[in-house]
């Protein structure tokens, strides 16, 4: 009897322990799952909101706006197959139709979006640039005409929300100038050399830059060289060249993380240019067949728009130096459009 009673008490305790553990485990697993789901939900909702914000920002031409940034920060990347995406935490979203030029990562309290239209010479699309208060752009200039022209263009268009300083090569090189520029706690710094050879071999940056993510670009009137530090403390840089057209193209080379992001977006922009010029060319054909406009002597020339379209289609698959010819076509089309305007004919754009 006594043995059976002892067994019963022991069994009760074992039962309570097992049942308690099962119940605790059940609730614990639900809590863990709910936590993961909540984090995922938050990231998805932030990505959705960012998608909506960038859509709004991308259609607001010329506008710069400062917006709150999620604590997790935002990462931007383009793969070698030109699949570009932004991500918050583990949730990623494709750029889709947006042409977004941004550094690899933006973190801090806010993010600045700026939109500029890409005109060849008509608006083909809008470029969206992203930066924030923790990122600094040093524009290095000299007295040459090209450098000063590029400086004037950048100064005229860059919004005040972007941290930009215009300096000379002597200000960067601590070998020759003890008062050289130093990092004022910026997380990322971009050195943009406006038509000046960066000469990284002989350039000594201030030691305050040693732990900073530094990238650099050489911008000439025709092309841009993207430089990437080989590693964090290295003074050596890898270079990649790309060609640009238009003011928006110039700023794309300033704000893009690397040549990959720049090239992918410019190819997509060229694709869009191809379709816009096709619609404009088809519209022009209607004008060319209109009896009243023929009688009025409106000079519609399909050649230039066709040339823009052909070039845009070819550049959409491989961006190269040929893209520079777009400038000549744009200039010709501009003259043709003004001629139409003078004769009170419907303009092309």
């Amino acid at each position, binding site marked *: *009897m006594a043995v*059976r009673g002892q067994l*019963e008490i022991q069994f009760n305790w074992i*039962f309570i322990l097992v*049942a308690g553990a099962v119940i605790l485990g059940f609730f614990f697993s639900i809590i863990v799952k709910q936590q993961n789901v909540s984090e995922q939900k938050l990231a998805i909702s932030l990505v*959705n909101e960012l998608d*909506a914000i960038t*859509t*709004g920002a991308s*259609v607001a*031409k010329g506008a710069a706006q400062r917006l709150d940034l999620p604590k997790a920060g935002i990462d931007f990347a383009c793969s070698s197959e030109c699949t570009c995406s932004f991500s918050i935490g583990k949730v990623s979203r494709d750029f*889709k*139709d947006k042409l977004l030029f941004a550094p690899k990562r933006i973190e801090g309290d806010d993010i600045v979006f700026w939109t500029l239209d890409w*005109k060849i*010479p*008509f*608006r*083909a*699309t*809008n470029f969206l640039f992203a930066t924030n208060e923790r990122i600094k752009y040093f524009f290095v200039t000299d007295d040459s005409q090209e450098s000063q022209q590029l400086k004037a263009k950048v100064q005229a268009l860059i919004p005040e929300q972007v941290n930009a300083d215009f300096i000379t090569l002597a200000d960067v090189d601590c070998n020759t100038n003890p008062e050289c520029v130093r990092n004022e706690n910026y997380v990322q710094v971009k050195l943009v050399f406006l038509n000046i050879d960066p000469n990284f071999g002989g350039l000594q940056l201030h030691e305050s830059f040693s732990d900073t993510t530094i990238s650099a670009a050489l911008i000439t009137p025709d092309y841009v060289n993207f430089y990437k530090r080989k590693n964090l403390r290295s003074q050596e840089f890898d270079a990649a060249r790309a060609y640009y057209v238009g003011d928006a193209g110039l700023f794309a080379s300033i704000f893009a993380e690397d040549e990959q992001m720049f090239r992918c977006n410019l190819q997509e922009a060229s*694709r*869009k240019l191809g*379709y*816009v010029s*096709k*619609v*404009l060319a*088809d*519209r022009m054909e*209607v*004008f060319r067949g*209109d009896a*009243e*406009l023929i009688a009025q002597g409106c000079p519609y020339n399909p050649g230039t728009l066709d040339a823009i379209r052909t070039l845009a289609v070819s550049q959409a698959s491989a961006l190269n130096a040929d893209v520079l010819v777009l400038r000549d076509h744009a200039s010709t089309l501009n003259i043709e*459009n003004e001629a139409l*305007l003078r004769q009170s004919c*419907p*303009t092309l*754009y």
Partner: protein
Amino acid sequence: MPDPLLNRGQVKMFETLAVLVVFFFFLIFGASFYFKLQENSLMRELDKTGQLRAIQVSQKSLHLPELDCSFVNVQRDNCFDILKAQKFGALVTADENALIEYFKTFEYSTLTVYGVYPVPSTIVLYDRQRDGSVTVLQIPLLLYDARQGDYGFGYLEVKAYG
């Protein structure tokens, strides 16, 4: 004769089991109530996402250079060039690559321009449908005829498929 101690043990065991059954009954009832609430909240979220997408699609289309009214690069708000709209619709219908390209912009949606004045007309700009919920949005528009230099009235109907 049955052992009274064994009977008492069985009763205790049944009591414990009954408590567990009641406990899990409440747990399942609570969980099903919670998941129902979650489902409703998800449906509301999906509805909101559908509306947001319809707004985004209409916002994008109103600023598309392929459709807008521009005068030496100055755009007029809420205005479509009727010739551009016709040519754009024809392009997207005829060229599969164009349809794929504009899918990035409009995704699963149908965009139709309805002319109301002076002449009623219909231009389908883009049409890519799928089964599921539909959010419809209508936006009043100016319709510019570049040949005549005249404006008409109409509206853009955006159907966004969820």
